[in-house]
């Protein structure tokens, strides 16, 4: 390589790959913050949340979803991050009832309901099926309306309602306990 300007080569093919590397950083800079915020809404500001966010992004980068429309991409990220975060919750075996909500929650997130839902989900994570937990995380913690939760989960709105009803049935005794 070194030693002579004659060895300096212009290579269009290599430039294209380098542009792709820049794309990676730009995409990372645009997508990781929302994923981090999403993971922290459920897991609190923790190493676990950041690890899940990064794992989600790396899976995304290796997937074929990358060329999708922004809503499709975000739906994929939400779904993957939700499932990975549930795995972390199941391993953690503790609740984060006392943790404050993330800074800067949008208007659609009811902070009090969000905190209660997070505590209930953390407590039930080990015993409730993943699809019910996912629906609860998306609608109760992230504050998504049911049509968006359906888009993320790839199911019908009716199915989302059914999953939430089941989750609420399981959560009812715990909610009573928490409120008392």
């Amino acid at each position, binding site marked *: *390589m070194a030693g002579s300007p004659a060895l300096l*080569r212009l290579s269009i093919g290599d430039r294209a790959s380098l542009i792709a*590397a*820049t794309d990676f950083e730009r995409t990372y800079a*645009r997508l990781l913050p929302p994923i981090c915020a999403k993971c922290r809404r459920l897991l609190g500001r923790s190493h676990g949340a950041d690890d899940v966010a990064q794992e989600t992004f790396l899976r995304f980068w290796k997937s074929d979803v990358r060329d999708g429309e922004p809503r499709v991409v975000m739906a994929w990220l939400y779904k993957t991050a939700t499932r990975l975060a549930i795995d972390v919750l199941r391993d953690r075996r503790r609740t984060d009832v006392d943790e404050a909500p993330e800074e800067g929650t*949008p208007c659609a997130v009811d902070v009090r309901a969000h905190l209660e839902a997070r505590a209930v989900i953390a407590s039930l994570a080990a015993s409730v099926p993943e699809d019910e937990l996912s629906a609860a995380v998306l609608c109760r913690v992230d504050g998504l*309306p049911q049509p968006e939760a359906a888009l993320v989960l790839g199911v019908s709105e009716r199915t989302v309602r059914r999953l939430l009803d089941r989750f609420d049935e399981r959560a009812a005794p715990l909610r009573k306990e928490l409120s008392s």
Partner: protein
Amino acid sequence: MTTKADGEVSTFTLDVYWASGKPADATLEQHIAGCARCRAYLASLELEAGRLPVPVVPARPDGVRPARRWALPSAVATGLALAACVLLLVRGRPTEPGYVGAKGTPAVQLLLHRQSDTWIWDGRSPVRPGDALALRVACEGLDHVAVAAPGAQGWARLSDAPCPGPGEALPFTLVVDDQPGDERLAVVLSRDVLDDESLRRAVVEERRASDVWTVAFLLTKKTESDR
């Protein structure tokens, strides 16, 4: 966009809006303009983007098409990311030796392209014949960037050009030859164009001052005979 019955905008919708970097429909823009909580949320995403470490580019799996380009509503995130230290995604790992610089100081990244993959050189891994190297710089107020390598007469200037825009690689690649021996490379950022002697001195002394900033690379090379 999706709103709840009471006109609230969902987190998902805000995330799509922020990540796409494009103007939204009038209803959403109007909502954001009038909603302090949503504005605070979007501001927190912007802040988070500024804190991100620059990632190591993972290998691109075969058969995957190039990434869709997401428009940037602000160059701030990229500028900060480029100026920030190159950290591996693994928390707690020290700053990579392949990078020299801290936030606010000039910095140089060496990108290594091999077969179909491109990644940021880690400062240790040997290069191989055929590898293509590219350089990205954060000039931080300096105006010119020169690249030099050792030649028969000492350090020789390979290129000299104005600093490129944020996030852009210098407009050439260096291809590693198959001759045995390590490769050395120096990047000199300066306020003014340096004459040959000033460039040589800057490289030899690895000078770092307000008007000149030198970053030297030593790359071990693994040839067929080493394997």
